[in-house]
């Protein structure tokens, strides 16, 4: 029995060591699973930046930025409109139509009109069987920022909201 004792101790040490190693790996894995998304999550950019990226031809970048706005402001027609423009530019015609449709139903008169025009344009494209991005004429853009008055300071801020 005494001869077995060192072997038992060795086996126990290996077993416990293995469990500790396994626990360490599991902990690291859990940490990576939960922390990495937080570490790699993009810092929210301004809506203006998303629009600038769209205007600069960075459609995928703009789209991912707008996705954040869509999650936060799901009923904002302007966000949907720019999302539609990005999808259209990326030839995601089904997604573009979905966003345009939302704006056509929920936007103001100006955006509704622009969205209906875009939907007509997409329909014609579909009926022609074309899938070329180049054949899609970029839709109109609403005016977002007035010409800034040089060195003017903000004195009043209007925030438009509703209890819907």
């Amino acid at each position, binding site marked *: 029995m005494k001869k077995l004792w060192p072997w038992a101790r060795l086996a126990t040490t290996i077993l416990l060591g293995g469990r500790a190693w396994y626990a360490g790996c599991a902990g690291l894995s859990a940490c990576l699973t939960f922390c990495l998304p937080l570490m790699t999550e993009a810092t929210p950019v*301004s809506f203006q930046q998303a629009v600038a990226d769209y205007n600069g031809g960075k459609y995928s970048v703009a789209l991912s930025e707008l996705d954040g706005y869509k999650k936060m402001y799901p009923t904002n027609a302007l*966000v949907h409109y720019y999302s539609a423009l990005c999808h259209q530019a990326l030839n995601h015609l089904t997604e573009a139509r979905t966003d345009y449709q939302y704006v056509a139903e929920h936007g103001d008169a100006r955006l509704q009109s622009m969205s209906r025009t875009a939907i007509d344009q997409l329909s014609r494209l579909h009926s022609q069987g074309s899938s070329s991005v180049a054949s899609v004429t970029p839709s109109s853009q609403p005016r977002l920022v007035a010409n800034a008055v040089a060195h*003017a300071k903000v004195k*009043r*801020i*209007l925030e438009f*909201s509703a209890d819907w």
Partner: protein
Amino acid sequence: MLAATKSKFRDVDFQTVDLTEPGGPGHETAEKYGISGIPHVVFLDGSGNVLFNSVPSQSAEGFEEEIKQFH
């Protein structure tokens, strides 16, 4: 969002325009500035000129940065 930011810009007059009621008084203002969805913010200078007219940032910090551009 305004409540958290107001105290940091005491010289700016913050106003909420309520668009809950269809045809309510806020809608006339919304039409004046071409508001196409909410939330939306408009920054005005002392003469009523529009400095910024857009969807606000998603965070209070981002919104404050937008104000600082004109402050």
